[in-house]
């Protein structure tokens, strides 16, 4: 049986678990950061992204309900995170829809899950299943560390391009600016929760596994956007692996 890792070693292991799987390196993210996409590609991204992040407070609500009363710090963090997604200011999905509308699509199209890819729907389902079925610390590792903590590294490359190359107004791209900073803090708080409450070798091991799965899922979701909306149909190789090729 594995030994319990010290907090610094466990943190290093969590960070290492995402290496080679970061969504910032997926084809759609790189094309975006390099200024190779067009506004209609951003519209398709928004129509998909809504179905991944839109239920984020729902996911956190399931994790919250699985956390015991004694896990006060974890519950407070989850509640604060839910509040920020939905109520603390403009609802985050409304900021996403504002960007989507600036890209030429509509609220109705964004909210219609038939406009999302199968991979996006799979990512949403994985998030729900993980939140509902896993120990709360493991689920926090998967969703907050594996998924949410990646956001600043992705959006910090995409946000300047939106302003400088595509000429979006600051208000139209507030969704990105907000998450560059807020998810820095959510990610850090997420690490703290996982380090504190994944307190057995089994929970640590499962946390690491689900961080890997979460990072793989986000990578696959992002790559599928490129394959679906950017590559011409004849270029997509159905035998191409959907997961990142790890060294």
């Amino acid at each position, binding site marked *: 049986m594995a030994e319990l890792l010290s907090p610094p070693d466990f943190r290093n292991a969590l960070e290492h678990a995402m290496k080679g799987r970061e969504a910032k390196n997926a084809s759609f993210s790189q094309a975006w950061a390099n200024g190779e996409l067009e506004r209609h590609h951003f519209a398709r991204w928004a129509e998909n992204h809504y179905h991944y992040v839109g239920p984020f407070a729902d996911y956190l609500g399931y994790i919250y309900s699985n956390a015991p009363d004694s896990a006060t710090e974890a519950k407070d963090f989850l509640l604060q995170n839910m509040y920020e997604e939905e109520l603390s*200011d403009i609802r985050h999905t409304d900021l996403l829809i504002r960007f989507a509308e600036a890209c030429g699509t509509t609220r109705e199209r964004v909210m219609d899950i038939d406009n999302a890819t199968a991979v996006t729907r799979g990512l949403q389902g994985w998030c729900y299943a993980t939140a509902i079925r896993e120990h709360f610390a493991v689920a926090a590792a998967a969703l907050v560390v594996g998924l949410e903590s990646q956001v600043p590294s992705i959006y910090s490359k995409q946000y300047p391009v939106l302003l400088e190359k595509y000429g979006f107004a600051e208000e139209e791209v507030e969704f990105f600016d907000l998450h560059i900073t807020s998810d*820095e803090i959510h990610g*850090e708080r997420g690490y703290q929760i996982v380090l504190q409450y994944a307190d057995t070798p089994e929970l640590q091991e499962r946390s690491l596994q689900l961080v890997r799965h979460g990072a793989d899922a986000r990578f696959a979701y992002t790559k599928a956007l490129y394959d679906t909306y950017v590559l011409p149909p004849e270029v997509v190789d159905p035998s191409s692996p959907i997961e990142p090729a790890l060294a």
Partner: protein
Amino acid sequence: MPTIRFSTSGREVHFPDGDEVNLLRVAIRNSCGIPFKCASGNCGTDRVRVDSGAENLDPPRKRERDRLAELLGEGYRLACQTYVRGDLTVTWDPDQVELGATGRVYDKLKQVWLAKDDTA
């Protein structure tokens, strides 16, 4: 290696040359004691006064400009919105709470609360 000095709590944190780090994230990770609440640039609980090193900070972002207004000119920044790339020294009031309960967050919540019948 640049150093962030959290004068109020007496803590110092070093970070690698060439890195750009979020001030509140560094403070949370190293238990440096900056009070915070929303971490989204809304509440202002994490405002700090920059005693030195302002030239090593990113320009204020939109939310920070909106929230701090004239306090920016007095040397204040919001830790959650601030990225650091060199030496910095900051102080704060350890008992500080959010900036005045005004603005669109408060107005929105007030609308929600006042719209509900009080059936208690």
